[in-house]
Each structure stands twice: as C-alpha cells, then as structure tokens.
C-alpha cells in the first residue's frame, strides 16, 4: 500500500507542478468566470444605462392621430427618462413610401426611424410602416415599444369614438401578472428556464473537462516510462499493479484538486449572478461520487492503452473509437437536460463510460430523479471500475515490457485472458 502512495505522491506533485495543469487550473476559470461577469456587466449596462434620445419622423396619412401619438410618447418619456424617443412630424407628408432622401437619413443614422401611419388605421384598415436600420438588440426592443405606443394611442382614439371613457379602457386593459412557481425546486423557489439549463451544463462541463484534462496524463506518464526504459527499473521495486494503482490514485487527486478549484470559481460566478441556489449540496455530493468513479474507469482504460503503446500518437489512434463515445452526451446534453426522465437519458445512463456525465446532467436538471436509478447507476459504475481495473492490470503487466508494434484489440483481449 505504501508503495502505491509513493507513486501516487510523485504523480500528483509532477502533475500539479506542470505548466499545463496551472494553465488549466487558472486560465479556464478566468475565461469562464470572466466571461460570465463581463457579459453580465455589459448587459446590465446596456439594459439599464442611459441611451441617447432616438428621433422618429412620422408621416400621419390619417391626418388626425399625431396629437395622440405626441401625448403617448410624452407619457412614455416621462416614465423612461433614459430611453427618450422624440417624434417629429414629417415635412412632406403625402406619400406612403419614404423618399430617397429620408432613406439616406435613416441609413446614415441622422434619424433613427421613419414611421408611416396608414390612412384608415383607426377603422382597422391599412398597414403602417416603420423604416429603420437594425443595429442591435436594443433597436428591436425600441421597435416593440413604438408599436405598443402607437397601438395604445389608436385604441384610445377608438374608445372615444365608441364613447368609452379612457379610464374604463385602462381598467379593461389592466395587466394581471401571473408568476411561475417551480414545485420541483427546493423551497419552491423561482426558477427561470435559463438557470435550469445552466446548472446541468456547468456540471457536465466540469465533469468532461475535469476527467479528460488530467486523465490524458495517465497515458503520457506510462508511455514516458516505457520510452525512457525506466519501466523495468521501477518494476524491480514494485508490482505492475502497484505502479498502475499509484498513478491512477495520484492523478485522481490532481483531478479532484482541479475540479474543486473550478467548482468554487463556478459557484462564486453563479452567486455573482444571484444563482447560487441552483447548486445543491446533494448534487455536489453526487458529482464527487460520479467524478471519482468515472475518473477511475477512464484512467484504467487509458493506463492499459498506454502500456500497450510506444508513442502518444499510437495511443491516440487506439483511443479514437473510445473518445467518440464521449461526444454523445456533449451533443445530446440539451435534449437530456430537457427530458431528464426520458428514455434516451435513462438508456445512456447505463452505458458505464457515459454514466458519470449523463447522470450528473440528469441530477442537475431534475433534482427529484428516482433514487433507485441513482443507486443502480452508481453500483453499475463501481462494478465496471473493478472489472476495468482488473483487466487493465493484466494488459498493463504484459504491455509495459513490450516494445515494437502495438497490439491489436484481439491481442489485448488475449492478454487479459491469459496473463
């Protein structure tokens, strides 16, 4: 046991001290957290900060609505002093389509939009037109504001024609707010669609990157020991199994360090957006369990592959089909997060190599996932880990002293059976 720890300690320190680990450790959270924080600040600023007043030139073909519009926009401007929209009557006002000069002014940004109100709009006939150049999201928001204000003004005019007092009309139109409450969330808290998908994705990303960024090192270190011919020197001091186990334990430790740092950074970023509630203690606990088991499973496969190969290139081409499997949850994550109890999600959960990623995705998306499935998947995963380690130890024992052409899959299976 102590020899496993000596190897584990060396592998851990060597990995943690490597440049690539530091880059992973620091750069990725900075990019992710920085991205989130920056995006939040930017949207906040553009959503809430003051914007220069917008000018809209209006041609009123009905020849009667302009005063109503002016009062509607005045009211709006009073309520939104940072989002002023100024309307100006057009000088030439007998044509439905804008002149070239007006078009140019819109395109050059001299005026922001050119609004043509149809002749019989009050009677519900004729279309109105809003000529503009859309530059960003805020322009779209402004369009819906203008549309709303125009409609409000026209509705007002109609109410007068039908002899309904504006007060009554206001009462008829009074907005009733309906609030969405998610019963599945703990404490019946408010949950938005957006955050519902953010947490599962966060966990999936953490699982995928955490498992693979460090696990690659299993491959590298075995191949390096073979290439530098230090392998047999080492094997005279400890058994192949001890060597393999030590490597895996040490690297799992490095991997845990990595995801712990990332997890804390992610949590901090989430709380910055006021979404810390989406990460629950139980989902964290499950994450750790699935992470460790998933890491061990993939690490044993990689150790076996590494032992059978002489170069990283050989190993990578041998790993290609296996790596392909891991694309599946990355491609299907949205579907799984949307239907965490669906058939697809359930089936994928019980493919051992995918279990950690799919299960953590489902648990984060659906906190009330059947405990039976969770326990069953953990058991299946644990058994798979034992089988993989047993088989890998056999391949490892034979592979580490083999030089030359890498074995075929059939030969690998023979090593498992006979060695």
């Amino acid at each position, binding site marked *: 046991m102590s*020899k496993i720890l*000596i*190897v584990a300690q*060396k592998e851990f320190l060597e990995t943690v001290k490597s440049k690539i680990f530091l880059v992973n450790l620091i750069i990725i959270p900075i990019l992710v957290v920085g991205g989130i924080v920056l995006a939040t600040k930017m949207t906040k600023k553009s959503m809430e900060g003051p914007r220069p007043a917008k000018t809209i030139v209006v041609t009123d073909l009905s020849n009667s609505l302009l005063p109503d519009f002016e009062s509607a926009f005045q009211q709006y401007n009073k309520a939104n002093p940072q989002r002023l929209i100024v309307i100006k009557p057009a000088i030439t006002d007998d044509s439905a389509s804008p002149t070239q000069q007006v078009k140019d002014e819109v395109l050059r940004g001299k005026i922001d939009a050119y609004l043509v109100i149809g002749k019989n709009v009050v009677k519900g006939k004729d279309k109105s037109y809003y000529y503009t150049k859309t530059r960003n999201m805020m322009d779209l928001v402004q369009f819906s504001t203008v549309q709303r204000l125009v409609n409000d003004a026209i509705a007002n005019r109609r109410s007068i024609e039908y002899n309904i007092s504006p007060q009554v009309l206001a009462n008829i139109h009074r907005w009733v707010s309906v609030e969405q409450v998610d019963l599945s969330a703990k404490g019946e808290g408010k949950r938005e669609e957006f955050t519902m998908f953010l947490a599962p994705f966060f966990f999936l990303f953490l699982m995928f990157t955490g498992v693979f960024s460090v696990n690659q090192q299993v491959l590298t270190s075995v191949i*390096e*020991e073979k290439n*530098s*011919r*230090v*392998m*047999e*020197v*080492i*094997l*005279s*001091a*400890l*058994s192949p199994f*001890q060597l393999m186990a030590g490597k895996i334990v040490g690297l799992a430790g490095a991997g845990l360090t990595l995801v712990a740092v990332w997890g804390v950074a992610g949590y901090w970023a989430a709380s910055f957006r006021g979404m810390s509630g989406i990460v629950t203690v139980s989902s964290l606990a499950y994450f750790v369990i699935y992470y460790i088991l998933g890491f061990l499973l993939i690490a044993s496969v990689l150790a076996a592959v590494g032992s059978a190969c002489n170069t990283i290139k050989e190993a990578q081409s041998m790993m290609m089909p296996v790596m392909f499997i891991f694309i599946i949850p990355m491609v299907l994550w949205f579907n799984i997060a949307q239907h965490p109890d669906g058939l697809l999600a359930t089936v994928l959960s019980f493919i051992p190599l995918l279990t950690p990623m799919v299960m953590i995705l489902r648990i984060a998306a659906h906190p009330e996932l059947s405990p039976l499935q969770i326990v069953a998947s953990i058991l299946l995963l644990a058994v798979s880990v034992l089988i993989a380690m047993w088989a890998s130890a056999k391949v490892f024992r034979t592979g580490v*002293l083999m*030089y030359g052409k890498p074995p075929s899959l059939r030969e690998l299976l023979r090593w498992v059976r006979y060695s």
Partner: protein
Amino acid sequence: MDALVLEEVAKTFSAVRAVDQLSARVPTGSIYGFLGPNGAGKTTTLRMIMDIIAPDSGRIEILGETPDSKANERIGYMPEERGLYRKMTVRDVLTYLAALKGMKRRAASQEIARWLGIMTLKDWADRKVEELSKGMQQKLQFIATVINDPDFLILDEPFSGLDPVNLDLLEGIMLRMRGAGKTVLFSTHVMEQAEKLCDFILLINKGKTVFDGTLDQIRSGYKSNAVVAELDGDAGFVRDLPMVKSTTVNGKRLEVALKESADSQELLRALVGRIRVRAFEEKVPSLHEIFVHLVGQSNE
C-alpha cells in the same frame, strides 16, 4: 547457504519455450556469470527472479524468500532495458527509487550524497537527468542499482555500451560487493568479463543448461595438451623433437601440439639449451572458444 535457488523453472511465450526446466544454485558471496547467446532465455530468467514475470512452473527462492516486491528491497537490479526519468533531477530520481526500495527518507538522502561523491556527480545533483552525458547517466544508473545497499546484485548485460572508465568502475563495484560477502549475478555474452570476474558460470542455450560449474571445471574438460611459445631465432628443429606431434606458426608465436603422453615441461627443457625462450605458456582454451563450441554442440 545459497543466495538463489532455481528448481525446474519453466516459462513459455505463445509457442516459444523461453526457459525449459532450468535449475541452478548461486552460492552466497560469489560472482556468478549467466552466459548464453541472444534468445537463450537469460533475460526471461532474470525477470522471473525479480518477480516481473511469473514462471509457468518450478520454484524460485531468493535470499531465502519467494520473489516479490518485498524481497526485491534487498536486491539491486539493473535490467538490460534501462533508463531513468529524463525530466527529473538526479537527486529526485534517486530519492524516488530509494523510497520505492523501502528506504527511509533520511537514510536515503545520506546514501545519495555518499554515492554522488564516489561517482563524482556531486555537482550534478540538482540538474535534470537529460542534461547528463551518456557516461554520467550510466554512473547514475549504477547508483540507482546499489542505492539500497543490496545483499544481492542482479545485472542483465551490464557491460553493453560502457566506456572503459565505467567498465572498470562497474567491475570495482562487483568485486567490492563480493568482498563484503554479498552475491553478484550477471548475464552477458561478453566472455572476457565473465572469464575475468566469475567464480561460477551457468551456460544456457534455448532455455536449457549447457554447462554449470566453476571456470576451472569448464576449462579442464577442454585441455588440449598444447603449448604456445615465442622463440628467438630459427625454430625449425622443434617439429622434429620426440614429444612433438605438430607445430603451427602463428605470427611471432609458435603453437606446438604435444604427443598424448608428453609433458610440456619436457619440451621446455629441450628448448632452453638450444634457443632463447621469450614466452612459454600452456594453451588454455578461452571461454569464448568453449562457449562457441558448447553452444554449437547443443544446437545440433
């Protein structure tokens, strides 16, 4: 008490019988040569002794124990395929290997300092292994092998690739080990070193014992009753002496085959009166010749 006992050890790889019912005993305190052509099964046997691969059948006992990684803590092993972690510093590599051999941290660091001093590598302790010259890396490999002060040294083809300085160094280590009552076993196909160092020799071919015994024993079977002499002047008369069967001129040297009952001392007496004798020795077959002969025989 024998340091190593092999009893009918066998190992087969797919269809190849690498080691075939091999038995041997290595006495404690000896230098034991393990000879044989390439592919004879030497490395396989050494790996089984080190518990790196398991024998199919037979029994191995080393220093009174069954081979395992615990027993290996008392053994220094230098494999044929050898190297060290290139990216680690000299000190870190040795510390790591010492820890794996079960050494305590403080004892290890003292031993490392001592050996680096002996091998004049002190100034390189904190440099990376890859920065060392090939010769220095070989010295480092020796240190790595003996760092745990082993009772038994097992070396697989230790002389391959060594320069004369490191060759002497390694021979010195082996002789000092024997002087301290420890046991050395090495495999080789370089016969000069075996001839110079070994107390006992085990010659194997195709996984089987061809010869097992001391150097004198192996030679005595190959007495040729011949003499090699270096003579000044005309030596034509030698051929006609009564005890001589035939002569061959070999450069400056004259090889004289004697009749079966004749004694080489008679020849010497006959020579001394008539010609100046610069050198005179009984012709002993070299280990190399015996090796080639025996292996050839066992291949038939």
